[in-house]
């Protein structure tokens, strides 16, 4: 029995989530394959987006998987780090932009 929540070996069993609910799981994987199939974005662009999102949702499985996938799609370390910074900037920005609401409220309750 492992004494930690995440085991890298579990990623290999991702496909087996259909064991408890086949129809939804199968539809998800079909959708997933379509998303990462040929489209308007290149395979590398999709992989870099996935890597960035993996950091936002803080999924260690996805971070491992898409770090390797980005390298296999020919991305380099600088491009990968920039993608993570984009995620970080949007995530941080999403907090900071709420400061406008804070400022508006403060100005409303403070004396002019």
């Amino acid at each position: 029995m492992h004494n930690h929540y995440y085991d890298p070996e579990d990623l290999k069993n991702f496909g087996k989530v259909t064991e408890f609910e086949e129809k939804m799981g199968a539809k998800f994987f079909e959708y997933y394959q379509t998303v990462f199939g040929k489209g308007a974005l290149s395979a590398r662009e999709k992989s870099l987006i996935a890597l960035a999102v993996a950091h936002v949702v803080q999924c260690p499985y996805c971070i491992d998987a898409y770090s390797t996938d980005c390298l296999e799609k020919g991305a380099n370390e600088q491009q990968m780090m920039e993608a993570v910074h984009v995620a970080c900037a949007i995530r941080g920005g999403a907090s900071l932009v709420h400061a406008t609401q804070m400022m508006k409220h403060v100005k409303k309750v403070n004396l002019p």
Partner: protein
Amino acid sequence: MTKSLFSQASPLAKGEEQIRILNEGSPKLRTLTPFGKKLEPLGLFPLKRTSLEIFQVNVGKMCNQVCKHCHVDAGPDRREIMTRETMLQCLKALKESSAHTVDLTGGAPEMNPDFRWFVEEIRKLDKKVIVRCNLTIILANPSYYDLPEFFKKYQVQVVSSLPYYDKRNTDRQRGDGVFDKSIKALQMLNEVGYGKGGTGLQLDLVYNPTGAFLPGAQEELEADFKRELKTLFGIEFNQLFVITNMPISRFLEYLEQSGNLESYLEKLIAAFNPQAAKGVMCRNTVSIGWDGYVYDCDFNQQLDLPVLSQTQRRLHVAEINWKAFSEEPIIINQHCFGCTAGSGSSCGGSLVE
């Protein structure tokens, strides 16, 4: 400079030990599907030869570089070198064969003192010559500065490794300063017409991953390399060949030490591509070692898995009978998954689109 596994007297310098690790190095490795089992349902087991096209000669293990992934374990401390006598035996066998191309590899093949003579003699037989040039050899010593002119004179196809179009990734794999020298050497090759349209002088680059992952799509990487090398350095080349790192020799040592061995082999097996298996290069290639012994490919050569004669002795190029050779099955093992993963891998790059 880093020493070769051979000079370090590492157990991994021996092919037998490498084969043992790949098959029995851990409980998990013992459970992995044998390569032959993957070939059986495809009707490819035992693996048979097609018509011989490529005559590959490893003229020696001496090299001016010590690359971290080198499957030959080549380096300046290696002294194994093909003699002119063995080259003459190769020429005789080549003349009697159906091969149209001679693929010269090493080490740095240009460091063999008889390299130029050998190229001249091969060309007299009207066979095409490919040289696996590491690029930096051209700048290693003034006596090599004229190699681009020599290659041009004999219409040699130059195939050179460049794992990435930046210094960081290239030097990490091939050694400090290799990227800058490689760029200079590519510019020298371009200056005499290599890689330029209309010259007929073929200059191809080889990409292989700088770690425990598979290479990307050849077409996409080629477009990146062409754009970046042209923009940054004004360099032109013809094709990019994408090659998978073979889990043997120094790369095997890296995989073991970094804890990536099991996952890398699992990845290769999971990515097994039947189409690539049908086109593996050992089917139309013969590989000759520096001492004249015959192998199915350069990887089997480094793993000491020789082709055996009908009397079960190691077959030497001096005694090769092409008809008998064509009927001998190809020796396979777990490392062969390196050639069949994804789009496949060969000395000419991907095997399928």
